[in-house]
């Protein structure tokens, strides 16, 4: 902390409601992901109760559900594996949504520099995942 910091004038932080919305977004995202993962795991277990761990580990159950079509079909068909995939996707998407919320609130606060910074982080995340993920599969 600097001496100047101790005498700092107005701060350049987000409005209080932005903190509340971001915290709620993180909490609800985690709750949704946790519920999906917990229920889907129990469902998966009930259908594969006699399987050994090495058998289950050899065939990653997500493989068929990583495309939008595969995931949609699996969810509609009530496949536990599709719900497990959705749970992990929601977990990954939650912090990304937080960055998008940050960009929105910085924009609303007319803070062009931080809006650009937030959007840059968002683009890096989305492009990085969408491009590098399938490329490295």
């Amino acid at each position, binding site marked *: *902390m600097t001496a100047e910091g101790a005498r700092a004038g107005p701060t350049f932080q987000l409005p209080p409601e932005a903190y509340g919305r971001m915290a709620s977004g993180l909490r609800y995202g985690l709750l949704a992901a946790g519920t999906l993962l917990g229920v889907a795991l129990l469902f998966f277990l009930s259908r594969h109760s006699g399987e050994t761990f090495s058998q289950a580990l050899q065939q990653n159950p997500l493989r068929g559900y990583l495309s939008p079509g595969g995931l949609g079909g699996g969810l509609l068909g009530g496949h536990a594996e599709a719900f497990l995939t959705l749970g992990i996707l929601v977990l*990954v998407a939650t912090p990304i949504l937080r960055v998008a919320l940050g960009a929105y609130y910085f924009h609303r606060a007319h803070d062009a520099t931080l809006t650009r*910074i937030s959007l840059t982080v968002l683009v890096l995340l989305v492009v990085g995942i969408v491009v590098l993920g399938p490329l490295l599969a």
Partner: protein
Amino acid sequence: MLLWVILLLLIAVGVAGGLLGSLAGLGGGVVIVPILVIGLGVPLLEAIGASAVSVLATSTTTGAAYVRDHITDVRIGMFLEIATVPGALLGVTATLVLAKVGLQPLLLFILGVVLLITVLDGVRHRPAGDQPVPADARSLRLHLEGSYLDLHDHREVRYRAGRTNPAFATMFGAGLVSGMFGIGSGALKVTALERFLGLPVKVATATSNFMIGVTVAASSGILLLAGAVNPLLAAPVALGTVTGSFLGSRILPRARNEILRVLFLGAVAALATELVLRGAGVA
């Protein structure tokens, strides 16, 4: 062994990782990967995938509370994510490429060394933050300053960040390590925020946690699409880690014990040494 027995064991590993990780202040990732690899014989890539998902869940849990309490500096966190996210993208790419060309032993060796360095950093008693740091042109231009209400001292604490260049470089390194091994790299992030930027300890810890979520989301997303996240590992470990971290945050501040902390660091050091030896082809 039957699937449900192992799933219960994985939940227990997650609970232990989250609980002990919060006790030592290192996070759960540093114990989860070595336990999965050494203890349960899980392939390294899938252990990294499971750890990344569990670190993501933990940082989201604790991150939400810090943001709600206005301790997190969203402005500084967002600025430094420009460094951590490319670092994580590069790190996870390096891991997937090295694994693909059959260099898992090298990854094990590097992971062991990273964990040993983390343990050494945890053993060292660093002076508390709040050290005066000169503001630089970038921190002034971006208004990297803020305040928070210290409930312990009942006063508003104001701060202004400085030395953004070394902080930025350290954050890139933290992102790289995080992406490579599915760990939070919280120790490196707190170092950058506290020592270089000169943020108060509480703000540094909260902002580091805030950034871990986004950094690990980048690597988790890629690992997921690359097929390296197995939900049968990731889901129970993540559920266990969140539970363990929650218990740790509630119970351990009262039970914090230096001997217990040193014992835990010793256990992580032993696991790290085993990884180094395996990587070197000795074990």
